[in-house]
């Protein structure tokens, strides 16, 4: 299991092959799509009974590497190098589709990147499992069916009978992910490749999925290639780690890969004077959605009797399970949603209800930073123009607006070249910086941050949080920070509330 830090040299790569019991080995893998080489000199071995993590920035080539290992690269891709799987002699990079289809599912299981999307939406869970079983084993339909419940139970799914009959859309994200793992492991392959199996799941679920994988590793001597960008995951489960930077891999034992840089926040960040009046007052807010459907038209309550009041220059953390109502509350605070009960005031001005402030005044009171950095920027305008726009809406001259926008964008860490490009040419982190600048330029009293870093790489999360902290010092804004990551909230917030079953209570 000893591996050197991989360089691009062939000699060291060859040394890797000699390691004990590799169930998946990749040597000098190179993948090119449309003339651009996306993955270069990637070599590593995955040993049976271990979890091998593949980490790296978004777009660095993790997914392509894993796809090369199951022969599912997009049709235009060209490859060189060697991919071997335990039990098959050939270099799999050369074999035809027929051979591959007999290997996939039997020797190597694959779990895709998107938990919700990787199950066929129109087939029941049991159909999808049975199909996988019968492909590689001579089972009749009813024989296969008899195994279904065991397989589902083996991935810790509660109520396997119900899940078997369900369509994927009737399952939560975590359940989908378990089913996907069950399908991948149903024929007892020796290798499991899982591409970000826990992203977009809440912390609890994440934990339990990883436990499940770990259990199968020790039980079945399964070799797992686990792709992730979540540092905590690596810390928790990895036996070995390979880091891909711009398509080039380096492997090491787990450890602190990048020193954690905790944001230097609150230099002068004293909690506000008690004399200061509460800037945000949420009183008895309730919200229910009208359920759509032809059968029942009952109201579905999402939030009940939410009361929070908070002072400027503080950060309020909001945690809760997926679907608990965090975004709903945030949108009510921002005036984007009308509550069914209660009221919201910012700096004494009503945000909701009759007599509420107009659009322009509201923009000075509260702003919103969205979870999706790409989706929240107009793809056809430069960041500079988009950040200047709120000032122009506030009646400032074009020149003044642009000057201030430019300065703020510099402050959040963007250079002139980046801010005059269309946003489609920016990375997620850069886009989120633009989004933050846009929210802050009018110096609002309250800024709602709805999962501002969830979609970003772990390497830039801290930077973004640091920028937010700096800006809070500048503007004395109140932050309402939403995240499903407990650790992040705990670190960043002054007060924490948890949303459980529509009820908000302080932690």
């Amino acid at each position, binding site marked *: 299991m000893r591996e050197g830090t991989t360089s691009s040299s062939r000699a060291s790569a060859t040394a890797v092959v000699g390691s004990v019991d590799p169930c998946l080995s990749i040597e000098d893998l190179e993948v090119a799509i449309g003339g651009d080489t996306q993955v270069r000199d990637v070599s590593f071995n995955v040993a049976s009974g271990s979890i091998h993590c593949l980490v790296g920035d978004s777009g660095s080539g993790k997914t392509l590497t894993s796809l090369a290992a199951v022969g599912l690269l997009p049709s235009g891709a060209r490859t060189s190098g060697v991919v071997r799987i335990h039990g098959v002699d050939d270099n799999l990079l050369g074999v035809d589709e027929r051979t591959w289809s007999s290997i996939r599912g039997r020797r190597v299981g694959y779990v895709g*990147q998107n938990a919700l999307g990787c199950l066929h939406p129109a087939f029941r869970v049991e159909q999808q499992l049975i199909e996988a079983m019968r492909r590689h084993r001579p089972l009749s339909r009813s024989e296969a069916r008899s195994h279904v419940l065991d397989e589902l139970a083996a991935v810790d799914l509660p109520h396997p009978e119900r899940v078997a009959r369900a369509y994927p859309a009737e399952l939560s994200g975590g359940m989908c992910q378990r089913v996907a793992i069950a399908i991948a492991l149903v024929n007892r392959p020796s290798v499991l490749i899982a591409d970000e199996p826990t992203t977009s799941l809440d912390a609890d679920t994440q934990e339990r999925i990883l436990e499940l994988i770990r259990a199968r590793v020790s039980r079945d001597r399964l070799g797992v290639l686990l792709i992730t960008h979540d540092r905590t995951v690596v810390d928790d489960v990895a036996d070995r780690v390979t880091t891909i930077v711009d398509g080039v891999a380096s492997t090491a034992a787990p450890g602190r890969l990048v020193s954690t840089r905790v944001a230097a926040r609150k230099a002068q960040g004293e909690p506000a004077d008690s004399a200061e009046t509460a800037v945000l007052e949420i009183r008895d807010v309730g919200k229910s959605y009208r359920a759509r459907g032809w059968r029942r038209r009952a109201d579905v309550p999402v939030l009940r009797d939410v009361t929070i009041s908070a002072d400027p220059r503080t950060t309020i953390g909001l945690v809760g399970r997926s679907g608990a109502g965090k975004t709903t509350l945030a949108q009510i605070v921002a005036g984007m949603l009308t509550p069914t009960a209660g009221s919201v005031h910012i700096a004494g001005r009503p945000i909701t209800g009759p007599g509420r402030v107009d659009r322009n005044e509201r923009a000075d009171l509260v*702003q919103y930073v969205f979870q*999706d950095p790409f989706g929240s920027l107009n793809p056809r305008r430069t960041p500079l123009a988009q950040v200047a*726009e709120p000032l122009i809406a*506030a009646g400032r001259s074009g020149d003044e607006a642009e000057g201030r926008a430019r300065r703020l964008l510099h402050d959040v860490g963007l250079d002139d070249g980046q801010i005059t490009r269309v946003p489609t040419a920016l990375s997620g982190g850069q886009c989120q910086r633009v989004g933050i600048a846009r929210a802050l330029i009018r110096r609002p009293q309250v800024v709602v941050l709805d999962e501002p870093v969830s979609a970003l790489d772990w390497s830039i999360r801290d930077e973004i949080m640091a920028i937010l902290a700096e800006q809070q010092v500048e503007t004395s804004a109140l932050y309402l920070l939403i995240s499903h990551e407990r650790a992040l909230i705990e670190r960043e917030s002054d007060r924490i509330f948890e949303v459980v079953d529509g009820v908000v209570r302080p932690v």
Partner: protein
Amino acid sequence: MRCHDCSARRSVSDEGPDLMRAWLVDRWLALVPVTVVVTFLVWWWFTHDPNAIDLGNRFARPSFDTPLGTDELGRDLLTRIIAGAFITIGAATIALIATAIIGTLLGTLAAWRGGSAGTALMLATDSIVAVPEIVVALIAVSILGTNLTALMVAVIAAGWLPFARLSFEIVGRLMASDYVVAAQMTGVGPGRLITYTLLPNAARPLIAHAFLRFPGKLLLLSGLSFLGLGPQPPTAEWGAMLARGVDELERHPWVPLMPGLAIVVTGYAAASVGRRIEQPIIQRPTN
């Protein structure tokens, strides 16, 4: 997974100018024959009269003097096709632009207002969609008489629906998108929102849709001509020429063939441009 989206998006728009350049470099040689042909057509156009009748030379086969042959009145088909290009493409284009503008305005308005106004508009379009285009056009022509203007009004009357639906969908989707919400959150008013945010983002699929609709417009024009509702003789409109020439399909096949080819080629070209603009997915044409 998000980064997949973004990289895909990036490649599309970034490669735009490069693609264009590569395309031009690749094909500049092809420009030479194209220029020659265009020059020849222009010269031919200036030296011939599309309405010159020669009863002694009816149904002449394609030959050196009459490259595409002559029609039932001995008129030169090449000249008439060139003349028809202005009329047919012009009429179809104007009609299309008008349908696009009317449809887009209504659809955008409905999506913008949302609620019952939107539902009402869509209900109306849903039931108007049930009336065949040709019948709508038939009514319009019977009200306004058979001339090119009436025909265009007819085509417009029949054609704005798909645009209304499409723009309703697109703008509706945009209105719910984070960046439109964000713009509204930052205090941007309707005027600037429409000009800087909604239109630039809705334009592309709408323009693509317009190009994809182009062949349909040509066919509708021609179909109306066939029913005797089109522009009247001696107008050298392709649809009318084709409709009139269909009788000769067996005797003098080139008479319908030439305008027919002109329609097919133009329709094909327009649709190809539309697909190029649209790139990823064909919008479902809502008829």
